[in-house]
């Protein structure tokens, strides 16, 4: 899959702002810039403060729209959540190297934690449905699951408070030996655990990393993550990496 050239788009119109849970929203904007699963946009929806744009993954995408699934964590995402339909956002993207879908064969597991589920809809849409199992962990009430079921993929849920699915971490209900390839996206400790399980089971695993970003395009070296072949830029060399290459506990 070739990555489309990124563009800088000012004033993309907000088409839809949906509140899915207490702090999780889905924002759909009019944009023809496209992108593939695992790629992201730098999103700016404020005037001057905060200063920097925020990296948000592509949740779903078509010719005319891009949508984002995001969790309010701080100032930037809080301002995103204040946007109404008709509001405007500034986007740079699509950016980064997404999932290596050509390497996802056989039985595919997608193991996510929390808002790490954001890029999964886009990814699952490109895979043959019968072979995909999403193992999704949440603190409490799950979100963005129903739409995955519409794709015909199998979804297994774990919640820390046990309010739905299995109580506990998603890594507890993930057995790598049942799969041919694995994808993971979520908090670093969780992905580290998935990577370890996959390494032990000798199953290839792709992980979508997170890092604080400034430029988002590969120019500032602000988002580096250590790998066996040196520091890599999460934004430009990733965000998706071969989990076996990542040095998880640097």
């Amino acid at each position, binding site marked *: 899959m070739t990555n489309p*050239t990124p563009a800088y788009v000012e004033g993309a119109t907000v088409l839809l702002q949906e509140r899915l849970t207490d702090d999780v929203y889905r924002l759909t904007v009019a944009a023809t810039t496209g992108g593939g699963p695992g790629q992201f946009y730098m999103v700016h929806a404020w005037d001057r403060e905060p200063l920097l744009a925020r990296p948000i993954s592509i949740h779903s995408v078509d010719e005319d729209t891009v949508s984002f699934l995001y969790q309010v964590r701080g100032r930037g995402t809080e301002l995103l959540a204040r946007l109404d339909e008709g509001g405007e956002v500034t986007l740079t993207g699509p950016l980064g190297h997404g999932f290596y879908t050509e390497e996802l064969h056989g039985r595919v597991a997608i193991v996510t934690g929390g808002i790490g589920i954001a890029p999964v809809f886009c990814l699952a849409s490109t895979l043959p449905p019968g072979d995909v199992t999403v193992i999704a962990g949440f603190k409490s009430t799950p979100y963005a699951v129903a739409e995955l079921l519409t794709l015909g993929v199998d979804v297994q849920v774990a919640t820390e408070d046990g309010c739905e699915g299995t109580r506990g971490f998603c890594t507890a209900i993930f057995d790598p030996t049942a799969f041919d390839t694995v994808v993971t996206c979520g908090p670093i400790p969780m992905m580290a655990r998935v990577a370890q399980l996959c390494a032990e089971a000798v199953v290839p695993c792709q992980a979508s990393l997170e890092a604080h970003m400034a430029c988002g395009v*590969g120019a500032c070296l602000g988002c580096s993550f250590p790998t066996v072949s040196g520091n890599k830029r999460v934004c430009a060399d990733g965000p998706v990496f071969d989990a076996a290459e990542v040095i998880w506990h640097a």
Partner: protein
Amino acid sequence: MLETNLCGVTLKNPVIAASGTFGFGAEYSQLFDVSGLGAICTKGLTLHPREGNPGLRVWETPAGMMNSIGLQNPGISVFLERELPRMRTLGTAIIANVGGGDLEEYVEGVRLVSGAEGVDIIELNISCPNVHEGGMAFGIKCDVAASVVTAVRRVCGKPLMVKLSPNAEDITAMAVACEQAGADAVSLVNTFKALAIDIHTRKPVFDNVTAGLSGPCIKPIALRMVWEVARAVHIPVVGIGGIATWQDALEFLMAGATAIQVGTATFVKPTAMLDIVDGLERYCTVEHLVTGDSPSCCNIQWRIP
């Protein structure tokens, strides 16, 4: 219209991408036509490759950001072989920013770069706050700075611009010392040494404890320094620090800068530098600053009394 002469090198305009914020130009050339820039400063280069600092590397502050990249770069040889040829296709002047950990590394680094075709100006970075063994050490005391400039000058066959640290004890004296040691220009400022503490972990945010502050927040201080230095030296001064709009750029030009560099603002808006070029052009036209047969920025009296 904004053609600028920076120590003998003709730039299309006085707007330059600041070192460390524009990679080697390739990344942003996906997003806009970088040939519209006056020049591009490379990421800081050192004789040997560096992996940079571990841990978190960027952190937002009110109207600014801190970074602790730590001079991650592929080393000068790889730059010359792999990056420079690509940069030369970008259609703008190339300023190689050279850093170092000690005097020898500076001299060797500059010698190597000085021999390379296609590098227009060498910017000597004696002001990086993010590497332990050096860089900024040279940027604090005048005599130390003078010694490195003198040594580098001997091996440097290209225009030599020295990039000053705002953490210098006395930035004006520093500029004068660099001028006397043979610098063809000075650029200022690099980032301010700053600190952030994570109150949840009760630890400094950065592994290196301190990091460099840049962005609009530093503009008023940077502008003061540029104004002071421009009055003290006879070589060109390149203004840097928090420039985000053409009005900001104009303030620096009025303070006596010959050209300006833009760093952090590019992260916020990739096309910020092109907007600045446009804005300055419009300003010159409206204010009738440019007259004569071959109108150029060199003829413009930006400077305030």
